[in-house]
C-alpha cells in the first residue's frame, strides 16, 4: 500500500476542481448529521399523538407469511380516513435488513417498519443505539375505539412486556403466534388416527403411520433448523418448567446443559432417526409444507401462520389442526396443553424518522378492534387485541390454535434469545441441523450452544438483556 497523506489527496483533488466531493468522501460514521427528531405537532382529542400531516408516512411491510395486503387494504385506509391529508408511502420487501439497514445508517429511516422475517434487523443493536422510538406515548394514549380507555388496557399485557428493553417499550408485538404439531383433520379422521397425549403415544402413532407405508410420519424444515430446535426447547420447558428457557435467555452458566434440555433433544433425535420424511435435511419450510398438503407426510412442527402461508396450495377440505407437545413423563413440570406461544410479528417506529408521530398513530389504528379483527380474518392469525375475534369467521387451523391457547391458560412458554442475540440463534440452528442429521451427539450439541452463550456473555460489545 502506498501512503498518501490527506493533504496530498486534497491538493490533487483541488487541482481537478473537485474539492467539494473529496470532502464528502471524508465522512466518518458519525458524519451523517442526523436531524434531531422533529417536534410533534399539536395534540388534540382527534390527534392524541400530535402527528403532522404535512409530512409523509413511509411504511415498510415484510412480505412474508402475512403478505402486505393487510396494510394496504385495512390499516392504511383506517388512518387515511381520519387524516385525509396525510400521504402514505407503502413499501414491501422480503429483505428488511438488507433494504433498510442503510437507511438507518444514513439517518433517514422510514416512519414505520414491520421488522420481521429471516432478514430482520437486530433489535438489540437498534435499541442499544437509541434508534427506536419509545412507545410509551402510544400505550398511554386513548384507544382508537374508546377515548376513555388507554391503548395499553385493550391489549394482552405480555405484548408490551415482550417488546420492552430495559423496562421501556420499543417494539409492538401485534400477532400472537401459537406453535404446535400440525396435521390434517381429514387425513387423521380417514385413517382413524388420534392426536397423541403422551410421548409413547406419539412414537406409536409414528410407527403406525410408517407401517401403513403410504406416507411419512414426521418432517420439519431441514434447511431452517429453527423449526426443530423450537420443539426441542418447548419440550424442555414442559419437562423442566419455565425457568429452563429463562436461564437460556439470560445466558446463565450451564443453561444449555440442563437435564430437561438434554432429555428433550434426545427424544427428538430418536424420533428423527426413525420417522423423518426422506430428504428432510435439504427441504425448506415451503417444500415440507407443500409435501404436507400433498399427503406425503403426516405431521410437522410450525407456528400458527402456517394456514395462511399455505392458503394457495392447501386442498379445500384439508382441515388444518394442531396439537400441543405430548406429556413426556409423569414428572413433567408443566401440565398437558402447555404451549409455546407469544405475541410476535414486530413493528417499530424509528426514532430518527422525519415523522415518528405518524408511525405511532398508525400503530394506534392497528390496535383498534376493526384493524385487528379484519387482520385476523384476512391473514388467519390471532392478535394481541382483546376480543378482536368477536363476530369474525375463523378458518379451521386458526380455530384449533385459538382453542389450544385458551386451554393452555397460564402454561405458556417462550424464549427470546432469537430476538436478542441473532448470533445465538444462528449457532443453535446450525448445531440442531447437525444433531438431527446424526453428525453431532446430544452432548456435543449442548456443548456448542453453551460455548456460544458463554462467548456472547463475554463479548463486551454486545448489549445483554434479561427477563
Amino acid at each position, binding site marked *: 500500500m502506498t501512503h498518501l497523506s490527506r493533504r496530498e489527496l486534497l491538493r490533487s483533488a483541488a487541482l481537478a476542481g473537485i474539492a467539494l466531493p473529496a470532502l464528502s468522501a471524508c465522512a466518518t460514521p458519525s458524519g451523517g448529521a442526523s436531524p434531531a427528531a422533529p417536534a410533534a405537532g399539536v395534540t388534540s382529542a382527534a390527534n392524541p399523538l400530535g402527528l403532522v400531516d404535512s409530512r409523509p408516512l413511509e411504511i415498510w411491510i415484510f412480505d412474508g407469511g402475512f403478505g402486505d395486503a393487510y396494510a394496504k387494504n385495512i390499516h392504511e385506509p383506517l388512518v387515511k380516513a381520519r387524516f385525509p391529508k396525510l400521504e402514505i408511502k407503502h*413499501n414491501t420487501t422480503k429483505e428488511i435488513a438488507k433494504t433498510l439497514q442503510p437507511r438507518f*445508517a444514513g439517518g433517514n429511516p422510514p416512519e414505520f417498519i414491520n421488522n420481521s422475517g429471516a432478514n430482520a434487523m437486530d433489535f438489540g443493536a437498534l435499541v442499544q443505539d437509541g434508534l427506536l422510538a419509545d412507545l410509551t406515548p402510544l400505550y398511554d394514549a386513548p384507544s382508537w375505539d374508546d377515548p376513555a380507555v388507554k391503548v395499553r388496557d385493550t391489549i394482552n399485557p405480555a405484548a408490551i412486556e415482550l417488546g420492552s428493553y430495559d423496562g421501556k417499550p420499543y417494539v409492538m408485538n401485534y400477532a400472537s403466534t401459537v406453535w404446535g404439531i400440525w396435521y390434517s383433520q381429514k387425513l387423521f379422521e380417514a385413517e382413524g388416527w388420534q392426536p397423541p397425549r403422551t410421548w409413547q403415544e406419539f412414537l406409536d402413532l409414528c410407527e403406525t403411520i410408517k407401517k401403513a407405508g403410504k406416507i411419512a410420519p414426521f418432517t420439519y424444515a431441514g434447511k431452517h433448523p429453527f423449526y426443530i430446535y423450537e420443539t426441542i426447547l418447548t419440550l424442555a420447558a414442559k419437562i423442566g418448567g419455565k425457568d429452563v428457557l429463562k436461564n437460556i435467555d439470560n445466558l446463565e452458566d450451564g443453561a444449555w446443559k440442563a437435564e430437561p434440555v438434554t432429555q428433550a433433544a434426545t427424544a427428538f433425535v430418536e424420533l428423527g432417526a426413525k420417522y423423518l420424511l426422506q430428504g428432510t435435511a435439504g427441504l425448506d419450510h415451503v417444500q415440507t*409444507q407443500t409435501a404436507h398438503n400433498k399427503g406425503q407426510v403426516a405431521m410437522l412442527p410450525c407456528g400458527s401462520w402456517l394456514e395462511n402461508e399455505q392458503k394457495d396450495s392447501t386442498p379445500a377440505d384439508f382441515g388444518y389442526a394442531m396439537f400441543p407437545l405430548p406429556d413426556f413423563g409423569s414428572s413433567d413440570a408443566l401440565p398437558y396443553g402447555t404451549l409455546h406461544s407469544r405475541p410476535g410479528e414486530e413493528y417499530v417506529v424509528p426514532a430518527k424518522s422525519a415523522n415518528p408521530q405518524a408511525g405511532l398513530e398508525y400503530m394506534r389504528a392497528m390496535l383498534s378492534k376493526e384493524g385487528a379483527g379484519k387482520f385476523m380474518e384476512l391473514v388467519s392469525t390471532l392478535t394481541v387485541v382483546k376480543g378482536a375475534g368477536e363476530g369474525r369467521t375463523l378458518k379451521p387451523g386458526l380455530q384449533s390454535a385459538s382453542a389450544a391457547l385458551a386451554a393452555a391458560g397460564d402454561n405458556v412458554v417462550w424464549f427470546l434469545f432469537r430476538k436478542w442475540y441473532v448470533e445465538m440463534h444462528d449457532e443453535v440452528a446450525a448445531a440442531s441441523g447437525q444433531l438431527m442429521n446424526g453428525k453431532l451427539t446430544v452432548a456435543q450439541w449442548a456443548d456448542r450452544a453453551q460455548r456460544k452463550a458463554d462467548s456472547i456473555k463475554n463479548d463486551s460489545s454486545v448489549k445483554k438483556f434479561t427477563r
Partner: protein
Amino acid sequence: MAEAVIPRSRAQVRQERRRALGPFAALTHLALLAWTVLVVVPIVWTFLASVKSEDEIFGDAWSLPAVLRFDSWGRAWEQAHIGQYMINSVIVVACGTFGTMLFGSMAAYVLARYSFFGNRAVYLLFVSGLAFPVYLALGPLFFVVQNMGTLPVVGPFIGLGTHGGLVLVYIAYSLPFTVFFLAAFFRTLPGAVAEAAFVDGASHARVFFQIMLPMAKPGIVSVTIFNVLGQWNQYQLPLVLLNSDRQKWVLTQGIAEISTAAGYDADWSALFAALSMAILPMLVVYTIFQSQIQKGLTAGALK
C-alpha cells in the same frame, strides 16, 4: 497425418474431416457432447419447469409438462417486474461500462507510457484495488454516496437511490482491473507511429485518441466485455445504494428477491418463469454477438 501445406478446396477439407471420423474423433465428440448436455440441460429444464403445474414441479423432475401453461410467465412479469429491472440493468451497465472504459483507458495510457513523479504510486494504488474485498467498504461507501447527494447542482443525480450514483460507484470499482489490464496492453504497443505523430506536432491527447486508442482496440474490446459481464453480475452494490426505490432496481436485485420469494410464496412455476426471463435475453444477445464477443475476449488476452 502430415500433409503438404497447400491451399485446400472445401471439398478436400470435407474429405479430410470424413476421414478424421475415426475412433478418436468419435470419442472427441462424445466428450464434447457430454459437456454440452451438462450446460444445456439445466437451462432447458428451467424453461420446462416454468410451464409445468405445481404438481408436476413437485413430482418427478424428469417428467414433461402435460400442458404448456404460460400463465406463470404472466405472474412473474407482473409480480417480479422483470422488464423494468432489465431496462434499469441495461442503462446502468451501459453508462458504467462506457465511463469505465473512457477513464480507465485514459489513466492506463498515461501510467503505461509517461514517466513522472508518482507514476508507480498511482499505478499501485489502482492495482491494489484488485485486492479490496468490497464488503469491507459497504458501510462507509453508503455515507460517501449520501454526501455526494448533498452537493449543489449535481447532487440530485448522483446521490443515494439514483442510477447516476450507482454508475459512478461501478466506474470506481471497475477501474483497478481495467487499469491493470490496459496498462499492460499499452506497454506492449509499438511507439514508432506515435513518435512520428509527435514530430508532426500532434498534441498528446490527439495522439491518444487518434492513434493509440485504435491500435489498442483488441484490448479495449476485451476489457469492455469483461466489464459488461462484471457489472451485469453486480448485486451487492445496488442492494445498498438503490435500496428504497423498487422502480430503480436492477435485474440481479430482482432475481435475488425472487429466490427468497419462492421461500415464502410457494409459487414455484413463477420462480422458474422469472428465471427463464432473466436467462433468455442474455442467451439471445450473446448468440447474436457471439463471434465478436469471443474474438474480443481472446484477442485481448492473447495479444
